[in-house]
């Protein structure tokens, strides 16, 4: 019933609009064509300018009210660089945006049709065209130069003292693994993947024995963090908006990203004046029906807190694997060596 009413109302509105259109046309057809064109150009030109002003006000107002919210305070070292680049881009494109749009609406209004006026025959002027080819090129070169300078810094090799974390995406959750005391992640082997050992970690390796899994990502402030990113099933994307970190998690191909957090969760809560604030890890690549739900909390803590937390973590191997398989059986576990040298 409701739907019928909606459709009925909709059709009614359309019919009314159609009738208005018909009447206006009937009236206008009777008039001299030039005069009619001048009149419509007048009123439409004015409406067009008005719509431009309205839109301009809308844009100005919303960017004023939303300003505090967009581009969240950057919580990492390279985030500030990106912030600066965004600012530069905002100024440059903003100026061009305002100038060109203002000119467009102004010209459209100013040069609307007049019966007695003639347009200027101005087919081309190579000097002007070269000028506005060269200037954008120069400006863009500057922008891209600044950008690439930082780009290579962001994707440089991680410092050796970086904390090694492995984050693996799966439908629809993240699995977080820490390198443990030796800060080295145990090697993975896809052929070992089972329900109990989704990641396919080679528990035989010594380095893997102290690795631990964590429910949340805990990282110390001001220390580089090297995130090894992977996926089990489909492509996911590791996205931390506040840290300006994004990297796809691709099954079969390990990717990585390193960054240096600069603001702890506590400090951020104060900045945001929101005691419930938490950094959140999101998935940013469509990965199925639960794509919108792949949340993981990221907690940035002080060095001391991190050390305390770290010492409380228990090796995953000792907790889970050793119990099932028995210490001895793992070592004698026959893992086809041939398989390890997979292409």
């Amino acid at each position: 019933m409701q739907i019928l009413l909606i459709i009925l109302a909709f059709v009614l509105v359309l019919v009314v609009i159609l009738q208005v259109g018909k009447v206006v046309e009937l009236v206008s057809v009777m008039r001299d064509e030039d005069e009619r064109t001048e009149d419509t150009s007048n009123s439409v030109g004015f409406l067009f300018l008005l719509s431009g002003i309205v839109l301009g006000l809308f844009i100005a107002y919303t960017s004023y009210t939303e300003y505090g919210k967009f581009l969240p305070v950057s919580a990492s070292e390279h985030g500030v660089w990106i912030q600066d680049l965004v600012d530069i881009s905002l100024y440059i494109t903003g100026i061009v945006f305002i100038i060109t749009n203002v000119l467009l609406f102004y010209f459209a209004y100013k040069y609307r049709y007049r019966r007695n006026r003639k347009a200027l025959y101005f087919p081309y002027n190579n000097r002007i065209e070269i000028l506005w080819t060269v200037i954008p090129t120069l400006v863009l070169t500057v922008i891209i130069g600044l950008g690439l300078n930082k780009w290579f810094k962001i994707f440089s090799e991680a410092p050796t003292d970086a904390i090694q974390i492995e984050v693996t995406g799966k439908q629809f959750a993240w699995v977080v693994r820490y390198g443990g005391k030796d800060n080295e992640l145990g090697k993975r082997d896809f052929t070992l993947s089972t329900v109990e050992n989704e990641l396919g970690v080679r528990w035989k390796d010594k380095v893997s024995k102290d690795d631990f899994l964590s429910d949340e990502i805990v990282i110390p402030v001001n220390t580089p963090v090297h995130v090894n990113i992977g996926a089990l099933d489909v492509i996911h994307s590791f996205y931390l908006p506040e840290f300006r970190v994004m990297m796809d998690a691709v099954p079969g191909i390990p990717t990585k990203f390193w960054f240096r957090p600069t603001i702890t969760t506590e400090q951020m809560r104060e900045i945001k004046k929101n005691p419930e604030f938490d950094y959140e890890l999101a998935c940013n690549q469509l990965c199925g029906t639960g794509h919108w739900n792949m949340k993981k909390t990221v907690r940035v803590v002080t060095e001391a807190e991190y050390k305390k937390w770290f010492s409380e973590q228990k090796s995953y191997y000792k907790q889970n694997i050793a119990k099932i398989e028995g210490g001895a059986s793992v070592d004698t576990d026959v893992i086809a060596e041939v398989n390890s040298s997979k292409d």
Partner: protein
Amino acid sequence: MSSHLDDATYHKQVAAIWRATIIIAVVTVFEVGLALSHYFFFYHHPKAIINVFMVLATLMKAFYIIAEFMHLKYEYRSFIIILTLPLIFLVWLIIALSVEGTFWLRLIQ
């Protein structure tokens, strides 16, 4: 597309075709020879240099097929340009994916 071809042009064209055929044949023999000699004599040496030669040889063959067999050499210059210029996109695709391919190898290892 003139339907009548005078004898002189006819003989010239036929000769050009056979010449191209012979060149292609020789180049092919050269290529296969290179590949086999590597296989039989230099098996444990890297093949990269030989590969470069074979790619160049193949490009030469491709040139003769396009220019002589497909008769493109004798079309208007602008037509040749219009047809060959888009191939730079392919070159860039090949370069980019080769860079990526070797990069994946580094990532996986």
